[in-house]
């Protein structure tokens, strides 16, 4: 059975004399390596991010990134061994959500994954998961631990005024009028 630990103590402002960006854990979830547990993780993380005030749209894209990270942990990290667990932790550090996905695998070089946007790779059925994670999160890093691999993903909870609600490059500029004029 999956284990879910949820803390209700939504962080208050950090004390001024406290360490910068101290992390406060909100949720921990541990699942066996089964794809049908991914929905549970997405629901729990989505709920926690909603309580932390992240808007619907960025929450959707963070949810996609979390799904991809967990799917990779199950497939590539734990090789779908149902006895190996994937642990997901959501913490808050200042104005950032920090999500860690920990598997029991040997790790890999994320730089070795081919660029899915290269013309020669567009028709490859695989290789887009890490691209999604990089696209939808502000930062992702990989690290080896004594027990496996952990991917850490960070996302600002408060979008700056420069940010759009959709991932970069999604929104088409509202230039249909000029396009129509050219037509």
């Amino acid at each position, binding site marked *: 059975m999956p284990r879910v630990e949820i803390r209700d103590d939504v962080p208050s402002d950090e004390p001024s004399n406290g360490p910068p960006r101290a992390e406060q854990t909100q949720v921990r979830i541990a699942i066996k390596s089964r*794809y*049908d547990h*991914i929905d549970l993780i997405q629901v729990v993380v989505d709920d926690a991010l909603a309580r932390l005030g992240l808007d619907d749209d960025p929450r*959707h894209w963070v949810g*996609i990134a979390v*799904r*991809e990270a967990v*799917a990779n942990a199950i*497939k590539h990290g734990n090789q779908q061994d149902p006895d190996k667990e994937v642990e997901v932790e959501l913490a808050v550090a200042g104005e950032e959500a920090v999500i860690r996905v920990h598997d029991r695998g040997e790790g890999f070089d994320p730089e070795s994954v081919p660029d*899915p*946007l290269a013309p020669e790779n*567009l*028709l*490859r*059925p*695989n290789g*887009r*998961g890490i*691209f*999604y994670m990089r*696209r939808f999160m502000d930062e992702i890093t990989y690290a080896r631990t004594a027990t496996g691999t952990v991917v850490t993903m960070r996302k600002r909870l408060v979008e700056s005024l420069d940010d759009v609600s*959709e*991932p970069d*490059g*999604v929104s088409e500029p509202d230039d249909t009028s000029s396009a129509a004029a050219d037509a």
Partner: protein
Amino acid sequence: MKIDVRNERGATILAPKGKINIGVGDVALREAVHEALEAGARKLVIDLGGVTTIDSSGVGELVSAHKTVENAGGALKLANLPSKVADILQITQLVTVFEVHDSASEAVDSFESA
């Protein structure tokens, strides 16, 4: 995930409902495309209007379906994309690969006018 299959003016329309995600909807979509091809379909439309989420495996299945249908001498078109699915195809630059229509009927029309 459930996939409705219907025929319209010689084209086969597959309409998945729900999630196309790893280990769940992706396999169902693959099987539906193969079944349609085995039944002789060569003009295929995937109506994505009922899809709530699609992960990278689901997108991978769309790409595989595109290649499988073309290799069989047919054509696959996408229709009725929810905004989040359209965003994903934009981000992955697969809008340059797929022929996308606003509705399944419009996609069927395009087969007839080709």
